[in-house]
């Protein structure tokens, strides 16, 4: 009880000093932990095959090679996987963000369907994919959408929709509606107020939502594994080809991984300002 006033003068020093060294050691170790697998993958992708099995491991190859990249892209049809992934991800992103922005605008400005509708959309985010992928597989088989890009585009549009809707919902809510109101007073239709006033103003939010939708599609594996096989397969599913032959195709697998992770990391790091909103569906502001 009496000790509190006695220690008062010394406090300010105590609080500042302690954490710094430990803090940077911890951050350094964690950065090493993050970068080590990526570095090892990169090194493996440019190693001659003879270096895989060397003990001690070859930390950097004496003669780097690009043969694994060509093999992964052509012999293992990585290139077709990239093309499919690009087409599917871009199309699904555009659709998801367009449909999602429209819905979010209606939810934000008119409170359409009240809380029920918006939470129903949100609940889709928590639906385990395994629960829907089996029936979708059966339905796709019977309507001829199995192993088509279109089928995967529709599936990806739907599964990225909750994030698009909720990110845009948060964005529209944070945006003042006075500009749209002014447009309406000036005789604009609701459509014009939406399309010519609100959408341009929301452009930064739309871009952020698009980036996260694209990354989600680009890295998705489970739906692609089930809903595609020989023609519409995406980049992540190409890695199946390297299973069961462990050792022989390390270089090819690594090369393909490097090719695949480069664009999504670049996009993600560029959009990191919006990351928190993207991860929490707008519930937390970054």
């Amino acid at each position, binding site marked *: 009880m009496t000790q509190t006033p006695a220690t008062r003068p010394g*406090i300010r020093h105590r*609080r500042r000093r302690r*954490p710094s060294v430990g803090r940077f050691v*911890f951050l350094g170790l*964690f*950065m090493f*932990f*993050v*970068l080590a*697998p990526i570095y*090892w993958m990169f090194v*493996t992708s440019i190693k001659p095959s003879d270096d*895989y099995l060397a*003990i001690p*491991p070859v930390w950097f190859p004496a003669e780097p090679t690009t043969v694994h990249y060509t093999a992964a892209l052509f012999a293992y049809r990585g290139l077709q996987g990239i093309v499919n992934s690009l087409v599917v991800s871009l199309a699904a992103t555009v659709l998801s963000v367009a*449909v999602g922005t*429209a*819905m979010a*605008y*209606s939810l934000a400005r008119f409170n*359409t369907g009240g809380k029920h*509708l918006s939470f*129903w*959309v949100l609940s889709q985010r*928590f*639906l385990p994919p*395994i*629960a*829907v992928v*089996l*029936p979708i597989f*059966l*339905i796709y088989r019977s309507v001829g959408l199995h192993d088509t890009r279109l089928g995967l585009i*529709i599936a990806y549009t*739907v599964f990225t929709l909750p994030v698009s*809707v909720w990110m845009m919902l948060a964005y529209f809510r944070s945006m003042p509606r006075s500009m749209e109101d002014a447009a309406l007073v000036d*005789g604009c*239709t609701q*459509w014009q107020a*939406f399309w010519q006033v609100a959408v341009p103003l929301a452009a930064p939010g739309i871009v952020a939502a698009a980036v996260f939708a694209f990354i989600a599609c680009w*890295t*998705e*594996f*489970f739906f692609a594994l089930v809903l595609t096989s020989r023609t519409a397969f995406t980049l992540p*599913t190409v890695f199946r080809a*390297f299973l069961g032959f*462990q050792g022989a195709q*390390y270089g090819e697998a690594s090369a393909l991984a490097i090719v695949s*992770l480069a664009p*999504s*990391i670049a996009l*993600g*790091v560029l959009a*990191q300002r919006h*990351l*928190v909103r993207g*991860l*929490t569906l707008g*519930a*937390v502001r970054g």
Partner: protein
Amino acid sequence: MTTDATSAISPARRQPRRRAGLSEWSDRHFRWLLVVPAVLLILSLSVYPLVFSLWVSFVNYDFQIPGHAFVGLKNFSMVIFDPVARWSLVLTILLSSANVAIELGLGLALALAMVRSFPGRGLVMSVLIIPLFISPVIVGQAWALLLQRPFGPMNYLLGQILGQEVTIGWLTESPWLYVALIIADVWQWTPFMFVILLAGLTAIPPNLYEAAELDGVDGWQAFRLITLPQLAPIIMLAITFRLLDAVRLFDTIFIMTAGGPGTKTYTSSFYLYTVGFTQFHLSQATAGSWIFLILTALLVGLLVRRLVKSEPA
């Protein structure tokens, strides 16, 4: 008088608009029209498949046998009394709780380390979030490469540190393969916790700490009395989002262990996938999926209700 001027915000347009019945109709139902595409998409690719799968789970659905005979609860009982199914559920619970707990601890530590600015913080931030943008398949592949028994560098490095030969079969031996799966998951998702908790930490009003300092509260007490209570809603939110993804664990298992050895690393998703797509017991798999869906829904109900309660205003 109006030649459809490009400037939309012009009072002169009011007159011609009135005439077009369709545009008036669409304007009146504007808010519903905006919602329709999204609702239709979700209905057709989420609600309809779920209803369809409910039917599938009560019949014997087989590509070979025409006419899907009604079998009642047989598919459900086959899953419930399958020891592999029960084991996979236990493993799903154990792995996802371990993953989320470790990720929360590390993420909180990272967030505390990053909350005050220092030179190079932006670069460190960019590095720390990298795993979030990588396909889990690649994460599995990368860790398999590092841990692979005879020639992965992990055993070699451990051997150098410990001064004796290390021959851990990270992807084949019983306790270690769980460690390997946890490492891969922690690698990928700790940044998720970190980013959200950092946002939460930044939002704590600094005057709380100033007041505490005047009251003679030391660092640890300030953490316990100010940081944790202030952060609680965000921690809850981060756990909710992360846990609901963690229970789906599939991709890294598919790549790293393929469920093996035997069925030792079957998670619920992996089990249901195997039953459905390698054994082609489609009805049994959909029945199991419904059980899994209901369990997930219970978890959602539990967590989201708490979340709504802890939401500050």
